[in-house]
């Protein structure tokens, strides 16, 4: 195993960088398009600030349909579009196109969900204060849902890492590509295991990092003490019980 690690370290490192490259870029584009889509869904629903039932119904259907296409099929179906945008259908840039298109409707639903969590009374209060719809979106919806959107961001990123690995089967590059090429095509399972371990580490780091960030920016339960304080407090409590 050690030999494998040493021999393949440069390749695996490059794979990591490619995976991160694809994930970061596609997450960015997915939010660039998905977030406004989610806001549009939220504000046009019944009772929303820009209620529009037909639009909401049709748009909702479009998003559902896009979301139900299996990723690999979507990627193949997008080949002509991908070629138009990046000039090729293989490599990491090509994968970014497919990943972004696949994730945008997913992001839209997640953003919609995050916005649903906001107390409708707060939106109403803003309306009473004379806020325009645009001001409500920018100053109320986006601000109040930030912690929830960050949590969604971690789910999206991790999902995109998984999709990115799948895209490896179609020549996207990254850790998935390495795993398939060496593990499956060349019967070197050790390389495949290594790519899986690396993917696990990346996923855990993302989950942990975004979780921490979400908790840090959320002002709703600032009374809740940090883990350290809780831990010390808990230990003190236990000590007190034992003294009796």
């Amino acid at each position, binding site marked *: 195993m050690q030999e494998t690690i040493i021999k393949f370290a440069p390749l695996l490192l490059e794979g990591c960088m490619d995976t991160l490259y694809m994930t970061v870029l596609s997450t960015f584009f997915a939010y660039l398009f998905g977030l406004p889509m989610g806001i549009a869904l939220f504000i046009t629903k019944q009772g929303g600030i820009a209620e529009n039932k037909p639009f909401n119904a049709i748009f909702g259907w479009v998003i559902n349909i896009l979301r139900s296409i299996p990723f690999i099929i979507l990627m193949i179906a997008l080949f002509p579009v991908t070629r138009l945008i990046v000039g090729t259908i293989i490599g990491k840039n090509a994968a970014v196109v497919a990943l972004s298109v696949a994730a945008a409707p997913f992001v839209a639903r997640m953003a919609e969900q995050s916005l649903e969590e906001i107390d409708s*009374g707060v939106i109403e*209060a803003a309306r009473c*204060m004379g806020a325009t719809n645009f001001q409500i979106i920018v100053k109320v919806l986006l601000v109040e849902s930030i912690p929830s959107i960050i949590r969604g961001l971690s789910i999206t990123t991790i999902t995109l890492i998984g999709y990115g690995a799948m895209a490896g089967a179609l020549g996207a590059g990254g850790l998935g590509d390495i795993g398939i090429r060496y593990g499956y095509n060349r019967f070197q399972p050790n390389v495949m295991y290594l790519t899986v371990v690396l993917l696990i580490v990346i996923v855990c780091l993302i989950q942990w990092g975004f979780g921490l960030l979400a908790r840090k920016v959320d*002002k709703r339960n600032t009374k809740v003490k940090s883990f350290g304080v809780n831990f010390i407090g808990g230990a003190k409590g236990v000590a007190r019980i034992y003294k009796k």
Partner: protein
Amino acid sequence: MIQIEKLTKVFNSGEAGEVVALKDIDLHINRGDIFGIIGMSGAGKSTLLRCLSMLETPTSGTVLLDGEDTATLKGRKLIEARRNMGVVFQGYNLLMQKTVAQNVAFPLSLSKTPKAEIAARTEELLQLVGLADKKDNYPSQLSGGQKQRVAIARALATNPLVLLCDEPTSALDSLTTKAVLQLLQDINHKLNVTIIIITHEMSVVKSICNRVAVIDESRIVECGQTETVFENPASDITKLLLGYEVNE
């Protein structure tokens, strides 16, 4: 200052059919009043207030604000009218991700108010409601009474002529209720803001309202000076709310 004439509101709620929430409401509220609107749960109080705050449009009838029909207001004029009206809610409805000061400054940040002016006004309002030392706290760190004070300060930010309060003390204990009512009374005296306060508790009306209307099953059943209504309740529902025994 506010004239409500033949106001009717009917909700079309799908399977449940039509719900008549307000029926032929006539009310006149004068400048400087602390006007109480009292009734049991489901009587239509919140709907009435939502019609006043232009969150709902009346099915028929009119709400005149200084002679102007609020239903016809649009765009700039609607925003202006809303800024002349502060609203305080039972559930506070504060922005949870913003500090106390940012919440109070919020209505001002919606118009192009200079930063220095916003800061000065926020400071002044927090002083008024007695929360100057909490300006950098978040709503989640405040008690119910403190949250409602922030909400009141926020509602006053744009110097409104009227303050509409929907059960502002219903979520608070009796001591905190007293303090919040005292604050509303001070505001009425000091700033000459007309206050309309909705409640289901007679004690609230008794302690600060000069006039009161009793609403029951979507209609106004009684209206007048608080003392008159308290001394000579004309309707059974008023007697009930006052704690009299009512023979069926």
